[in-house]
């Protein structure tokens, strides 16, 4: 499998603090790639650099053979990267359906085409029955799925998920895991996720990268990574190994 996303030696400093330190990795097409690590490890900073919120100080980010570092968030999205936010930000006064139509309109000029696509996406995300509700009236699990739906409606090749499991109950987590797995299997969508919920990471990821103090301390198959002594020491802790 070829690399869809290549992160090559990128760094980001905020004043004196090094948030991401000469980080390199590749996400292969069709894979589910998880980034884990303790709070403050630089996961969200990494995400924001890929999504175009800010540019890395050094290094390059290549997506589908094109440099994307330094592009704006909307340009990154138009090239095929959809994202969710750690703290969900749906369009509160709009209905669930209209939220997703906004995403679907990115590559469609007619509202009716966009609506048809949005309804397909809502069915996939188990939100079809709630399509007429205002986004502000949804529960947290529903809002999290709405974020995924809106990002998905933009027809991304790569989906960036920033802690979509956080705050979900185990049954909700399993539901989200099942939806994402199905998406990946049926549409070949590549997924890059930041996640703390190891239950979800182990169920989903085909590959894991562990960040600590902005640098990679381990990368590989899930089963190998969770047995890595450095990972256990810095992040998982001995009793957390499933």
């Amino acid at each position, binding site marked *: 499998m070829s690399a869809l996303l290549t992160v090559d030696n990128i760094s980001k400093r905020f004043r004196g603090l090094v948030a991401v330190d000469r980080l390199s990795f590749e996400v292969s097409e069709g894979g589910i790639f998880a980034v884990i690590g303790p709070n403050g490890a630089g996961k969200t900073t990494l995400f924001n650099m890929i*999504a175009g919120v800010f540019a890395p100080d050094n290094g390059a980010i290549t997506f589908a053979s094109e440099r994307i570092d330094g592009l*704006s*968030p*909307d340009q990154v*999205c*138009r090239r095929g990267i959809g*994202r969710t*936010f750690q703290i969900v*930000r*749906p*369009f*509160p*006064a*709009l209905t669930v359906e*209209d939220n997703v*139509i*906004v*995403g679907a*309109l*990115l590559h469609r*000029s*007619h*509202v009716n085409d*966009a609506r048809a696509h949005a309804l397909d996406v809502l069915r996939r995300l188990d939100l079809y029955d709630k399509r007429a509700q205002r986004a502000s009236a949804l529960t947290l699990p529903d809002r999290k799925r709405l974020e995924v739906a*809106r*990002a998905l409606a*933009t027809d991304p090749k790569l989906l960036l998920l920033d802690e979509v499991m956080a705050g979900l109950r185990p049954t909700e987590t399993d539901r989200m895991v099942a939806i994402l797995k199905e998406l990946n299997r049926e549409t070949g969508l590549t997924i890059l996720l930041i996640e703390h919920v190891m239950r979800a990471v182990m169920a989903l990821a085909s590959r894991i990268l562990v960040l600590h103090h902005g640098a990679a301390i381990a990368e590989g198959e899930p089963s190998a990574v969770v047995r890595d002594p450095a990972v256990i020491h810095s992040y998982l802790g001995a009793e957390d190994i499933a």
Partner: protein
Amino acid sequence: MIARLTDGVSGRALVLLAMLLAAAIAAPLFAGDYLLTVLILIFYFAYVGQAWNIMMGFAGQLSLGHALYVGLGAYTAAALYVHFGIGPWIGLLVAVPIAALAGAFVGFLAFRFKVSGVYFAILTIAVAEFARVGFDHLSWTAGSSGLFLPVKRNAGNDLWLLRGSPTMFYYVLLTATVLAFLGCRSLLKSRIGYFWLAIREDEQAARAAGIDTFRYKMVAVVISSAMTSFAGVIYAFYYNNLFPEQVFHISRSIEIILAPIVGGIGTLFGPVLGAFILTGLAETLTSTLAAVGIDLPGAKQVFYGICLLLVIMALPDGVWPWLSRRIGIKERGQ
């Protein structure tokens, strides 16, 4: 065409709209001179409120300087008429682009340099104030002594030169309001309308969904300012005199935004309803006060203040969202 216009509108809403429109068309037959001038004011505010609502209600950009676009439209068309005898409809071809350019200038300054929220509102006030001071010293438009349009008495109604009776102005403004309503409705239902609402709701999330927010905010300002300038042209030819102190004054900008706020920001019917409520009640109040012989300067302003206070406290979304629920008519995007 008709099917497209009525698409998604309930039967009850259609009947109501048709009745209102019929009443509005027939009104000059029954209304006396005074009532007609009140109705002209109402449709003037309904129209400019609709235009302002595109920026604030749809795209979420608060402009407190819309008097700028009214003034530019008014002065451009009036000066062309006074100096070269160019009629208002030809004058529009110059006035509208000038106002749109001014809007583009304000928008570019703000959106390019990430001026937003309160600071954006202050910028819009500042540019309108610059225009006020500038026009005070512009001799081509007679500066602070005012620009006067020649008035011919009893010359009949000349729609082409906009010289004539209040009835003619009433129908011009009614037509403009209807067209603005329909135009805003189709904008709101289109791709750009969805993008505006997304920007209004959460600009960062809108960008993450791939929306070029700079571009769509610029489009909103340009459409809004161009539409507003048309009202300025009518204003000039209706009042026949223009003073920078009046036309560009910040109180003019505030008047423009009251109707949509009271009626319901971001709704299509809100600006129209708000204009009826505010102007209708305020004029009733002043005429009642005059009839009983009480002379209270500023009573209208105090009244506006009380109305605004009541609406903000009791119905913060405006009267229309509340009323539309009561009568069972729903408008999208509320």
